[in-house]
């Protein structure tokens, strides 16, 4: 294998003594290639993520006010207001609206993710036991996931209509899509319907890699179903579950489509931070809209950091990547010997 006519630089066999320097050289070459391959992606992401973020921070320091422009005419001019847009989040009418949206966002995130996780776990446990019709089950569980959120908002608005099927089945006369707690409940139900199957799928995948022998050993040792769940299944799916919960939380924090379509814009009881920022920018108040967007971004970032650093969610598979490159290096080292 080592006698090749035209060996490419990367796999050229090297004498043992020259190995460290050789590796450094290869890394430099590969590094250049990697930079070349990655730069388009990084460039585009900088354009659509980094630029908007910086622009939002910049914009959030300004406010459009009616004043006199350079020629002395009355016009809408943008003036630098420092952190006033942020300070306003805590006082007066706009502050009340912001705190309400912040509260709604947090409330929806906590409730929906909790319910989704519990329900998703149950779904996964049920699917893990079913062997006949599993592929059919898997297909049906993907349907709520595939329905566009906007369509699901429309669909649940129809179900929750005052004379719709939900009230008919329950024999109630609740105004689900107006204001108040009923509309919050409607949003939570619709959101959980759409996303619990997703968590179920992820957790099921985590369950399926647990070897059957572990359960058999537990059974021999006399562990009941609950004991197996608590001592085997849950600890072993925990890493999967952690990543799934993190993704769901980040998704729930930016919730927009569902309350927007199901209940409507500008409804106090379901207005989220995304909806508030959207509404502000729709009113051409870009300054405060940007400030809200920045706050939401910071909120999302903090949650993500807490999950990754404190709870140890291995999102990137970085540990595994390192293992792979190590293995490759070892293999090459062996090959050169």
């Amino acid at each position: 294998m080592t006698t090749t006519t035209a060996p490419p630089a990367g796999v050229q066999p090297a004498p043992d003594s020259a190995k460290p320097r050789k590796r450094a050289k290869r890394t430099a070459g590969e590094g250049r290639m990697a930079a070349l391959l990655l730069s388009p992606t990084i460039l585009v992401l900088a354009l659509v993520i980094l630029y908007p973020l910086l622009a939002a921070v910049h914009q959030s320091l300004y406010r459009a006010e009616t004043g006199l422009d350079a020629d002395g005419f009355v016009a809408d001019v943008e003036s630098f207001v420092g952190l006033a847009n942020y300070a306003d989040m805590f006082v007066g009418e706009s502050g009340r609206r912001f705190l309400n949206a912040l509260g709604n966002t947090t409330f929806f995130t906590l409730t929906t993710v909790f319910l989704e996780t519990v329900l998703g776990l149950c779904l996964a446990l049920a699917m893990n036991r079913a062997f006949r019709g599993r592929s059919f089950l898997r297909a049906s569980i993907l349907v709520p996931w595939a329905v566009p959120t906007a369509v699901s908002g429309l669909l649940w608005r129809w179900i929750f209509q005052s004379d719709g099927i939900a009230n008919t089945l329950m024999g109630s006369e609740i105004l689900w899509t107006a204001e108040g707690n009923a509309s919050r409940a409607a949003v939570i139900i619709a959101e959980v319907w759409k996303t619990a199957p997703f968590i179920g799928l992820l957790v099921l995948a985590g369950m399926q890699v647990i070897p059957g022998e572990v359960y058999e050993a537990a059974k021999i040792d006399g562990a009941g179903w609950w004991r197996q769940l608590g001592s085997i299944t849950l600890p072993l799916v925990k890493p999967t579950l952690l990543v799934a919960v993190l993704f769901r939380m980040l998704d729930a924090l930016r919730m927009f489509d569902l309350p927007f379509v199901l209940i409507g814009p500008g409804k106090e009881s379901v207005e989220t931070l995304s909806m508030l920022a959207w509404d502000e920018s729709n009113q051409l108040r870009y300054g405060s809209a940007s400030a809200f967007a920045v706050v939401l971004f910071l909120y999302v970032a903090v949650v993500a950091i807490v999950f990754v650093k404190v709870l140890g969610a291995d999102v990137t598979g970085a540990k595994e990547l390192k293992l792979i490159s190590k293995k490759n290096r070892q293999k090459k080292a062996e090959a050169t010997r």
Partner: protein
Amino acid sequence: MTLSDLRNAAADSGAAPQATDAAVGRSAKAKPKRTWRSYSVYLGLALIFAYCLAPFYWMLVSSLRRTADIFDNTLLPAPFSLENYAKVFDGSTMFGQALLNSLVVAGTTTVFALLLGVFAAYAISRLNFRFKSLILGVIIATSMFPGISVVVPLLRLFTDLGWINTYQAMIVPSLSFAIPLAVWNLTTFMKALPFDLEEAAMIDGCTKWQAFRRVLLPLAAPGVFTTAILTFIHSWNEFIIALSMINDPKIQTATVAISKFTGATEFQAPFGEQMAAGVIVTVPLVIMVLVFQRRIVEGLTAGASK
């Protein structure tokens, strides 16, 4: 060893995951005893079916009723009618155009995301370089970026550029979630492919580029395909960008168009038409899901479970 040998060998190893899938099924197929327990399992399954499909079924049934009996509660549409579908396409709503717009936007976004994603994923999964996990981390982190934080500043920029009511005003921001999704999925797929084949090809005299193009890419094709489906579905379902960047009904995408469906009177929303439009927007996705369910599940779970 020729290239076709390599491909065959890889095809064998590619079949492995499915085999293990079957093995999992076999190991746990201890003869089902007909006890109350097995019945309760079936009951549970029936409940899951109902949970997942009932709301969608209700949309389908409602869309097939006549406007006059839209508030019926029968499980099947009493007089079956396509009236709502005819209305959706009668031209006054421009829904056909909206579907076409969705197709253009989601399709273009998918193509761009894949093009960039394949190269990025190759670099991350195959090359040794510094800051690798940092770069992958940053790319994945961008996928968690809230849509509104992209939309507000870009709305301003695109207004200045005169891009409002254009396709690119939707495609460019959509890349912010499509690229991370594509890179991540493709990286996971490529990591799972055996490295030895490319190495063998390179020992046989291929350059890195040839090994990539003639060995890795054909092997990764299923992964690329799955990524394409996932990216397409995500872009097709995108809402907040299309809602913000477009106010001309001619350029609107389908998800935005149906959210703006209003009837002749303000007091009675045209629920039948809305349901019909919802079914039309969703059915292509449901068919995709049914046909490619194994791949989609693989793609969705690839990142999360290792």
